[in-house]
Structure formats: C-alpha cells, structure tokens
C-alpha cells in the first residue's frame, strides 16, 4: 500500500516538475494532458487506498528524516487513515476535474504550461498537508499551498490587482501561520514531539492552560488559511486568479485546510470545549457576515467566494461544537458543489469575455444550456434542498447546533441558510434569466468546450448524490473521530425543523427569482436601495478592507519610511557619522595650536612647564595637608 501512498503523493509533483520544464515554451497541449493524467493516477491510487482504509487498515510510513537536532525529530512521515483518505479523495477528485477543465479554460493563455506547473504543485502541497503524520509536515503543506496560491492568484502577473491580491493573500496567511508556528512550538516544548500519534496520546497529561493555548494558536493558523474573520479579506481579492484556481484552491481544498486542521487535532479540541465554543461562535458569525456581503455584491466570483466563506463558517461551527465528522462531511460535500459552481462561473466568464458583473449578463440559459443546468443544480445543492448533497451536510450542522443547545448559533445559521439561498439564486437569476443585457456591450457568448462540461460532470454527480454516502462515511471516520450521532430525538421537532428549513430556503429562492429573473437594466448606483446605509455598508464589505488599508497598510508603509529616513539615516547612522565627524572637526578646530610660529611653540612649552609646576605645587600642598 505504501506504493500507492507514494504514487498518490508524488504523481502531482511529477506533473508539476514536468510542466515546469515547459514553463517557458509556447503552449503545448500535451503538458495539460500529462499533468491531468498524473493527477488521475493520483486519484486512482487514492481510491485504492480508500478501499484499503475502508477495510479497517491504515497506512503509516516514514520516508526519511527531515530535521533532527537535540530532542527534536521530524521525519517526512505520511499517514493514510480515515480522515486523511477522505481529504485525499476530495483533493484528487476536484483537482483532476479542474485540471481537465483547465485544458480548455486556459486554452488561449500564454502561460498554459506554467499554469499546470503551479496547479499540480498546489495539489502536491495539499496532499502533503493532508497526508503528513506530524505538525511540521502539515506546516510544509500549509506553506506550500500558500505559495502556490500566491503564484496562482498572481498568475496574470501583469495585472496590478492580481499581484496585489496575491501578496495580500500570502501575507495574511503568514500572519496566521505565525500563530500556527507558535502552536507547534508549544506542542514541541510540552510534548517533546510533533508526531500526531504521540501528541494526541499525551495531550491529556498537560495542564489545561497549555492545552488551551495550543488550541488557540493552532486555530489562529486555521483562521488564516480558512479566511475566517478578521483575516478574511484576502479570499474575495483572491478571485483575481484564473477561475479554475478559485474552484480548486479557494473553494474546494486549500481554504478548507483550516477545518481539516481542527478536525485532525480533535483530541486537542475535545479537551478545551471553551475554545470550541469560540470557534463555533466565530464560525456562525462568519457564516452570516459573509452571506450578508454576498447579498449585494456585483461580482460573480466574489459572490461565490463569500458563499465559500460562509460555508467555511458552517464547518467551523460543526468542528467547534465537537461534531468533527459533520464538519468534514460538509467540507467534502461543499467541495463538490462549490467547485462545480466556480467552474460554471468560469464558463460564463469565458462566454462573457471575462465580464464579471451579473447585471451585465442575463438570459444566458439560451446559449449555455449545460452550464445553466450545472450551476442551477450546484446552487440548489448549496442551498441545501433535499436530496442534494447540501441538504445532508448543511442541515446536519443546523441540527448539531440545535442538539448541542446553542440556539443562538442555530438561529444565525438558519438565517444564513436563507440568505445563502437568496444570493445563490440571485446570481443564477441574473446570469441565466431575464433580458439579454450583455447585448448592450456587444458580447457574443458561446458555450464552453464539450470536454469541459464532461469534465465537470463528475462533480455534478457528486453534488447530487454525495449525501447518500453519509452512513458509509460515518462508519469510516468514526474510527478516528468522536462518533457522536446528532439527532433531534423528538420526532415532531425534527420534522418541523427539517420542513421549516426547507420551506424557508425555498421561499428565499423564490424571492430571489421574483426579484431578479426579470431584471432589465444595469444599476448605476442611483436607486434608493443603493443609496441606503446598509447597502453601502455591505457593498463596501463593512469597510473592513478600507480599514485595514488605513489602520495597517498605510501606517506600516509610513512607519517604514520613517524608520528608514528618520531613524535609520537621521538618528542611528547620523550618530555614527557625528562621532566620526566630531573627531575630525576637533582636529580641524585645534590644528591651529600648531600655527607654525616659533614663539607660540615656545610658549606652549613654557605653558606646559608652568602647568606641571603648578600641579606639582598643588599636589604637594594637598599631600602635606592630608599627610598632616
């Protein structure tokens, strides 16, 4: 089985290296095909591993030593267990699809080969992240996906906004990574190892305070990667990257790494329920917060990005409340339909020549039937309509909240579910229904390549049926995660809740349709709604990016400038120079002591003698006084 492990892990790396060989050459179709093929290999291996793991085994292997000094021993160790295999499946499925899809999507891009190098490298990093058997290895993957995310967001590096967003994402993530790093340090100095098995078996022996700190710092790391408030702003800006990137990295995989971390570290978080509640509360807040911003946004990809953010909030609610398996389940389901949604959006973008404003589209269902169907179904899944995947995973989280008696969280999540349905279908309605507003801009949309649609179809299937794996999945992961079942035991309550939620969601969908499916004009900011305070607040993302700009970015730049121009040059360096110049000036000013005049010279000698004599006398007087 180790062979399959290594194949699953390294096939993407091989693909990446192979593609990078051609990074500077003109576009070559085979690069995309080979990279996709290698990813498919990885997927197949993962599947084999899945069946193996389902048989009740796990694979744990140590490739080689990485860092060993003092008491610290970090190997390149990999583990395929019930949790990581789920993640591997998600990653390999989505990334295979995205790879194939990208062959078509990046068809006309100069950086075609480079794109595959980055994309495969990302998959490799992600695999390292999920398969590592220790925190340091996790951190490798953690940073690796950050790097690839940077490279892919800034893929179109000539675009100022893209490179800016790439740097923002990287730096924001770094802030969180520091927390993660500190968490790792804490683990090491208190446990003496970074191996999961050692850490999790000994974590209980530590003082609660330390466990709490470990939990907090690790979660800070997770917050960055999963773009939780207040480190969320990068995710929306990350939409500058090519759309397949958004689908793979910023919807399905990388952003869920934070959730994965919390799930993986469940033995730690189990011991600190208070932190768990904080995580859950934050998750609920982010769910609502992000959904509210999605309500008014006019950028197709950003809307989906906010929706991702919102769903990540859901996952954290589940994880925070101890329902790790539920979080992981929603992670998986969400990966499928969200990736699908993004890829569909990619098709739309292609058709619309990279136009992102849904108000400038409309009526696209006529020319893009396949995409229309897929996106609608994905949105349905996202909204959580029975029997789509979202229903099983998302409603389960609502139930968790309810069962655990966190009614506030429950209410928030319920509300968010409604909002989710609303903005999803606002988007669908604006893009695919109503008048063909794009004609005003002289665009001639066309459907994407067939094979792209075909490539997307597995996701579509999974988005529809993923819910039915629930029990199989539960059987699988309960070996590793707390196997709590979350059922509302009172049947009446259960049915009221389920049906109520469904009705609420459907109502939201209908409302969205009613409001937007016949939209005819492009808003120009003159309507009353657009002038209202709340609209502006949401439109400006609660002014948070602006605030960051004003509070952090600008002062930092200004401080840096001061540090250089005022402190470094004018104080530190000037002091050094002043000492040197002072010495030199002293020389200049006193050199006239030697004025070349013999009389002066003689006088100096006499003065010297007189001074010495006076000192001699003074000393003698003093000596005699003291002596007497």
């Amino acid at each position, binding site marked *: 089985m180790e062979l399959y492990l290594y194949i699953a892990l390294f096939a993407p790396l091989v693909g990446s290296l192979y593609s990078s060989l051609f990074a500077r050459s003109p576009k070559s179709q085979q690069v995309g095909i080979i990279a996709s093929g290698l990813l498919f290999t990885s997927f197949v291996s993962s599947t084999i591993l899945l069946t193996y793991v389902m048989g009740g085994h796990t694979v744990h292997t140590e490739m080689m030593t990485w860092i060993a000094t003092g008491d610290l021993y970090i190997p390149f160790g990999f583990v395929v267990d019930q949790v990581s295999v789920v993640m591997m499946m998600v990653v390999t499925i989505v990334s295979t699809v995205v790879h194939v899809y990208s062959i078509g999507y990046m068809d006309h891009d100069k950086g075609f080969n480079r794109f595959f190098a980055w994309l495969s490298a990302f998959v490799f990093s992600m695999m390292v992240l999920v398969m590592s058997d220790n925190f340091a290895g996790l951190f490798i993957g953690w940073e690796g996906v950050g790097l690839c995310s940077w490279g892919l967001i800034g893929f179109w590096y000539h675009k100022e906004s893209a490179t800016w967003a790439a740097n923002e994402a990287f730096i924001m993530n770094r802030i969180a990574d520091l927390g993660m790093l500190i968490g790792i340090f804490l683990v090491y100095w208190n446990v003496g190892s970074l191996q999961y098995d050692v850490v999790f078996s000994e974590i209980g022996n530590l003082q609660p305070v330390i466990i709490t700190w470990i939990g907090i710092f690790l979660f800070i790391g997770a917050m960055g990667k999963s773009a939780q408030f207040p480190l969320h702003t990068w995710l929306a800006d990350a939409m500058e990257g090519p759309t397949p990137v958004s689908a793979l990295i910023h919807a399905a995989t990388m952003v869920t790494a934070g959730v994965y971390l919390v799930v993986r570290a469940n033995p730690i978080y189990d011991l600190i329920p208070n932190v768990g509640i904080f995580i859950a509360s934050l998750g609920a807040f982010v769910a609502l917060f992000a959904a509210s911003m999605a309500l008014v946004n006019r950028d197709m990809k950003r809307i989906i990005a906010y929706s991702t953010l919102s769903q990540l909030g859901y996952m954290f609610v589940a994880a925070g409340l101890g329902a790790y398996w539920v979080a992981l389940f929603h992670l998986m389901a969400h990966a499928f339909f969200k990736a699908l949604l993004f890829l569909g959006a990619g098709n739309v973008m292609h058709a619309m020549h990279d136009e992102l404003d849904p108000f400038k589209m409309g009526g696209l269902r006529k020319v893009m039937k396949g995409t229309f169907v897929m996106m609608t179904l994905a949105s349905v899944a996202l909204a959580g309509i029975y029997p789509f995947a979202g229903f099983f995973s998302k409603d389960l989280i609502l139930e968790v909240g309810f069962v655990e008696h966190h009614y506030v969280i429950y209410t928030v999540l319920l509300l968010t579910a409604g909002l989710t349905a609303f903005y999803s279908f606002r988007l669908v309605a604006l893009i695919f229904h109503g008048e063909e507003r794009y004609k005003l801009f002289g665009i001639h949309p066309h459907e994407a390549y067939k094979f792209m649609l075909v490539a997307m179809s597995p996701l579509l299937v999974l988005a529809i049926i993923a819910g039915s794996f629930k029990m199989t999945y539960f059987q699988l992961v309960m070996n590793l995660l707390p196997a709590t079942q979350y059922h509302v035991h009172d049947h009446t309550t259960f049915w009221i809740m389920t049906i109520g939620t469904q009705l609420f969601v459907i109502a939201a969908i209908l409302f969205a349709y009613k409001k937007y499916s016949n939209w005819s004009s492009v808003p120009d900011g003159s309507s009353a709604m657009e002038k209202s305070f709340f609209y502006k607040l949401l439109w400006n993302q609660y002014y948070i990016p602006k605030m960051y700009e004003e509070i952090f970015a600008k002062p930092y730049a200004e401080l840096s400038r001061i540090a250089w121009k005022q402190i470094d040059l004018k104080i530190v360096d000037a002091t050094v120079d002043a000492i*040197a110049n002072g*010495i*030199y000036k*002293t*020389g*200049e000013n*006193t*050199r006239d*002591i*030697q004025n*070349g005049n*013999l009389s*002066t*010279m*003689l006088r*100096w*000698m*006499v*003065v*010297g*003698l007189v001074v*010495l*004599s006076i*000192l*001699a*006398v003074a*000393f*003698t007087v003093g*000596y*005699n006084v003291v002596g007497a």
Partner: protein
Amino acid sequence: MLEPIHVALGSLNIATLAPMLIAVVGALSILIIDLAKGGLHKSLYVMIALLFLLLDLGALVDFGGLFLKNGTILGFFDVMLMDGIAIMSQIIIVAGSMLFIPLALTSKRFHEYDYPEYFALFLFMIAGFQFMVATDNLIMIFIGLETASLALYTLIALHNRSKSFEAAVKYFTMGALAAGFYAFGSMILYAISGSVEMNQIATILAEDHYSNIGYVLLSMAFMIAAFGFKLSMVPFHTWTPDVYEGSSAALAGYMSIVPKIAAFVVAMRLFEFLVHSGVAWLQVILYIGVVVTMTASNIWALVQSDVKRMLAYSSISHAGFVMAAVLIGTTQSNTGLFLYWALFSFTNLGAFTMIWVNRQKNLLPGQSSDHPYEKFSGMVKTMPMGAVMMGLFMLSLAGIPPFGLFWGKMYMIGSAVTSGYTVLALIMALNSAIAGYYYLKLIVFMFMKEPMVGYNQFYFMNASLSLKTIIGIAAVGTIFAVFAVNPLLKVITLFVYNSGY
C-alpha cells in the same frame, strides 16, 4: 679642600666605552679620509659608516653576552652603566641607524650627502645617543643628549631647503629651551639629594621618605617638560611635524625611531623609580600625558593633507602609546616598549623610505607641500608593487594583523590589561581605531582613486637598488614579524628583567 683623586686604570673598565668610541672613531676617520682625499663618492662614506656601525653592533652583542653572564657592567667612574636596557636600546639605535644610513644612496643627487661631514655627524649623533642610554649619570645624559641633538640640528639643516632651515631653527631653539629645563630639573634633584646619579638619588630619596616631595615633583615637572620635548609629548610636540616636514624623509624616519628610543630609556630610568615608589602625582601626570598625546596627535593627524606631516603626527601618537609602558612600569610593559619599537622601526623605515623614494625636486604649481596625498593617487595602477608596499606599511602602522606593529600593540595593550590599567587599554585600542582613518586615507588614495596627471611621474623617481632593497627588508620584516616576535620577546624579557625593570 677637595681630596685628590686616585684612580686605578683597571677599575675604570674602559671597555664600557668601546661601543661609543667605535662610533666616534668612525666619525673621525671619515673626516680624516676626507682631509686626505676629497671629492670621494658618498657610497664610500655610507659603507664606512656601515662598517663602523657593524663593529659597534658587534661590541654591543658581545656586551649582551657578558651582561647575561655577569649582570650589569659598570665602568668609567661608575658613570657608564651597561645594563640590559642600555644594551638593548643601543642595539636598536645602532641597528636602526644601519637601516637608515643606506638611504643616502638615492639615485638623485642630494646636496647633503655630498658632504662627508654628514656621515661624520651621523656617527657622532649615534655616539651621543649611546652615551645617553648607557648611563644613569645626569651629566652624562646631558652630554649625550646635547651631542646627539646638536649633530641632529646640523643634519637637518644640511638638507639645504628653506624649509629645512626653518625646521632646524625651530628644533634648535626649542631644544635649547628643553636643555635649560633639563639642566634646571637636574639642579633641583642635585640640590635635594646631593648626587647626580639616579640610583643614588633614588636611594637617598627613599631613605629620606620623600620629605622634600614638593621639590622632587618640581624637578619631575622640569624633567617631564624636557623629555616631553624629546619624546614629543603634547604640548611639547609642536616641533615634530615641522621638523619632519622640513627634513629629508630619510632623516625624518630616522628621527621617528632612534632619538625616541634613547629618550624612552632615560625616561624609564628617571620616572620609573618614582612610579614604583607610589608617587601618585607622577602616575596621574603620565597618564594624562599619555592619553592626551595619543589622542590629540591622532586627531591632528586626521586633518593633515601632507603624508609626511601625517606620519609625523602618527609617530607622536605611537610615542604616546609607548610612553604608556613607562607609566605602567612592569617588566612586561618595558619589554613591550622595546618590542614595539623594534617592530615600529621596521615599518616606519619602510614608510619613510617610500616617501623618500617619492621625493621630487620642485613643487608642481598648486602643490603646497612635498608629499600631498594626491601624489599617491591611483598609485596601484601605475606602480602596483610600490602601492602594495606602501599599503602594507600603512596597514602595519594601523595595527592590522598579521603585520609587524600589531604584535607590538597587542603586547602593549596586554601589559596594560595585566597591570589593571583597563581604561588605558581601552583608550589605546580606540586610538588605534582613530589612527586607522588616516592610514586608510593613504590607502584609499593609492588604491581607489585615479592617478593624478603630473604626480604619477614621481612615484619611483628617487629609487635606487639599495632603496628598493631597504623597502624589501622593511616589508619582509613587517610581514614576517610574527615569527620574530617570540625570539625578540624572550631576549628582551631576559634583558629587561635582569636589569631590574
């Protein structure tokens, strides 16, 4: 009435006079040769002088052996005192002179070397210095000092430039004043102790428990002034830069080495018994003197625009540095003094020879002095070897290891550290850093600037084979000093220790 004096010839131990007499005889023979047949080439006189100096050196080495066997040798009414430091300093004096005298063999003709008297005076001067160090009699010191000084004034003036006359007059006048100080200081010592021999004075004062401390200190004030002049300690230093600038580079280099070691020896003899008997005043004064001399001259050296003048200030600074040894007054520090001076003489020999080699007859328009920094500009491009050599000497003077002076500096600072003069050690170290600047300045000019039109023709104008040889010797001595330090240390320590210092 005074008793008639009976003297047994054997007890005179005339042999103690031999080294000085060799020099005197050498001088006289040069004069006689000139009388017999005039117009001989200078190289003859150089060689004669060298021969006699070699004999002199041989005699000294012989005394060295004797000293190690039998201890201090007294002679000539106990006026002559051949102890370890006397022998050592004489060896440095004679050896240093031997290194400098061939500098007369330049390729250009220089007025002074056409006079055989120049070489005679040179030998007389050496004899004077030898007398000065080989006695503890104040009269003898005075005679030696003045013999040497008067000869030196003349030698400077023989350079026959208007500046050299000015220099000679300045030096002479101030020297006369210093002689007055010395005489008056000796008089006070004589008045309170009734003796003119230092060891007796020391004994008498100690027996007396320094009851006349005021007069002792007063006399010391005069003595410090007198020797401060010779050692060019601030504020008695003012002659130094002018005299260095005025005299030929060869002689300036010589003055930076030989007269000073003689003065150091006397200062050691004169001041150390007081330092050791715990006269705090002297310690304080010397401390201040050392620090001020080192620092002030360093600071003035920074602002010089003429290399020779810079070297003049730098040698003041080096003298101040070494004067610390007298202040510290331990065997280690005195050993350090001689070690330092031996190494210093090699490096300074090289540096001044390089300056000498650069001598030009007439100043260029706009040139204010003989050796402005600009003259060395871009030397590495036109005269790479010369520039490397000069750079080497500058680095050594700055105390960059592994070159010669570093070891001296290290040992001196080490002796300060060992004796608890920590602050002094730090000041010495920091002064070396300041000094680094002006030595570096020359290196900067030589290695980092473009050659200046007009100056570059002078680089090796004055060079002859013998001068190049001397530069080579100086360079070898500077580079491989590290291997010489251990034997030097051993010998010097032996001599110094056995002399009771």
